[in-house]
């Protein structure tokens, strides 16, 4: 068993900054992440875009990194069971920092299972990983601040952005723009994206009704205000803002709301020795995640002056998080046809779920959420579609090898 002063779950900006600040105060730190490299979804690898602190963190002798490592179970006595591509480990922590980030909310619509329909951040991630986009026609639809940087990125890489269809109303978007005025760097960023997207049709109050195609998406039907349009395209990037990854916190018994892990102002969850930072505390973006990384290190090391400094900074960044949530966190859905798939893993349709009264019934009777993704897509979707709450989170948190689970025999039954 390996033991660390602090284990950080997630090597994104929040986790890396926490690790750097903890190691600079002499703490032995481990970071675990299921991706092949650090950086999280925003940096995807710690290159030139990443901050100096994040890059430095990866060279610290006090920081151990576990990449391509999935957290399989949270155990008693401050232990974690993790799985690497070839092995499994039990890790012990004194303090645990959840920096599990966020995922896109993907809401079902007719045709959304066709190849060529991706998340918005999903399409960007795939292009960064080598997928060709030059010359492809892309419709970006849904809602959220992610739309802008991704549209600019895709255009820069040669994509033809056919249209951006944002669900929110113009007054709502304008109000959000006014909030940005208090954050000069973000306002500057937003204006830069707008400049890069000159000439791209941008429609507010617009919803995807259906995506067409047989083996690949070839078009999308959009309700724009009172009328409908059919657009031909190669890709539909569809996303409805972000939802925090809460399953790890829930597995540990931490209180959560649908939007965040519940914490004190100083980032403590309701479970002793467990903290939450970054998107897990509610979608707040990069600067917020970095500030909370610094703050959690100051809190753990009881560094009073740093606590006061970073606490103020977090409060400032969290005001923007509130504006983001007010603007984007309540996406609407167009009425679904009975044959629209809701659970992609098990092919459970909207019609099949009509008689399920809650998430548990849907799981037991229809196998909704019982496939490999373990409800990470349809769980959040059914919460929005039907108002279902989450069920108890049980291990294994991710599909695991039998050999990994067998490691539990190495520890006493009381500690499992």
């Amino acid at each position: 068993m390996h033991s660390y002063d602090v284990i950080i779950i997630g090597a994104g900006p929040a986790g890396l900054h926490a690790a750097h600040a903890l190691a600079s105060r002499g703490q032995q730190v481990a970071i675990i992440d299921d991706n092949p490299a650090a950086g999280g979804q925003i940096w995807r690898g710690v290159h030139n875009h990443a901050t100096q602190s994040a890059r430095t963190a990866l060279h610290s002798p006090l920081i151990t990194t576990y990449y391509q490592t999935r957290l399989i179970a949270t155990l008693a006595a401050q232990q974690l069971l993790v799985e690497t591509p070839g092995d499994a480990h039990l890790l012990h922590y004194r303090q645990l920092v959840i920096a599990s980030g966020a995922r896109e909310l993907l809401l079902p619509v007719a045709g959304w299972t066709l190849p060529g329909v991706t998340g918005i951040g999903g399409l960007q991630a795939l292009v960064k990983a080598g997928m060709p986009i030059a010359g492809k026609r892309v419709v970006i639809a849904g809602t959220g601040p992610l739309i802008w940087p991704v549209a600019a990125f895709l255009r820069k890489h040669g994509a033809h952005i056919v249209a951006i269809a944002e669900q929110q109303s113009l007054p709502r978007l304008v109000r959000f723009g006014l909030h940005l005025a208090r954050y000069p760097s973000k306002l500057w960023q937003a204006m830069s994206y707008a400049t890069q997207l000159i000439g791209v049709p941008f429609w507010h109050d617009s919803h995807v009704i259906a995506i067409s195609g047989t083996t690949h998406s070839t078009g999308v039907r959009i309700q724009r205000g009172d009328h409908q349009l059919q657009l031909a395209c190669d890709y539909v990037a569809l996303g409805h803002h972000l939802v925090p990854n809460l399953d790890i916190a829930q597995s540990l018994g931490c209180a959560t709301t649908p939007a965040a892990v519940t914490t004190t102002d100083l980032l403590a969850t309701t479970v002793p020795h467990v903290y939450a930072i970054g998107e897990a505390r509610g979608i707040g973006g990069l600067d917020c995640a970095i500030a909370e990384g610094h703050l959690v290190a100051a809190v753990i090391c009881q560094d009073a002056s740093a606590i006061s400094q970073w606490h103020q900074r977090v409060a400032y960044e969290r005001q923007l998080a509130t504006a983001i949530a007010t603007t984007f966190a309540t996406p609407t859905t167009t009425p679904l046809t009975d044959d629209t798939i809701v659970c992609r893993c098990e092919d459970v349709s909207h019609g099949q779920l009509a008689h399920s009264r809650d998430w548990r019934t849907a799981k037991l009777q229809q196998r909704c959420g019982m496939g490999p993704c373990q409800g990470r897509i349809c769980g959040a979707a059914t919460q929005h579609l039907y108002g279902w709450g989450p069920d108890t989170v049980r291990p294994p948190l991710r599909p695991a090898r039998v050999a990994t689970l067998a490691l539990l025999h190495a520890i006493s039954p009381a500690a499992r």
Partner: protein
Amino acid sequence: MATITLFINNHPYTCDAGNSVAGAIAQAHQQLVTTRQSVHGMPRTAVCGMGICFECRVTINGVAHQLACQTLVAAGMQVTYGEAADA
């Protein structure tokens, strides 16, 4: 960046060493292609790009259900899906 050669459904393909398997498959076909049939036989492929949705799973070096979006390409890697994976 350095390049490597892997095998996609038994065909050699050379790409950047920093690509994911999902990226390499799309590159080899110039677009996203079906890499999986759903339980009811519908075509599927990568969606979230970040290890959440599990739609991109393929067989890598004989091990089924590996996530193409979270696996980096490697020299000599054997990636199969569809009929090639069943063979």
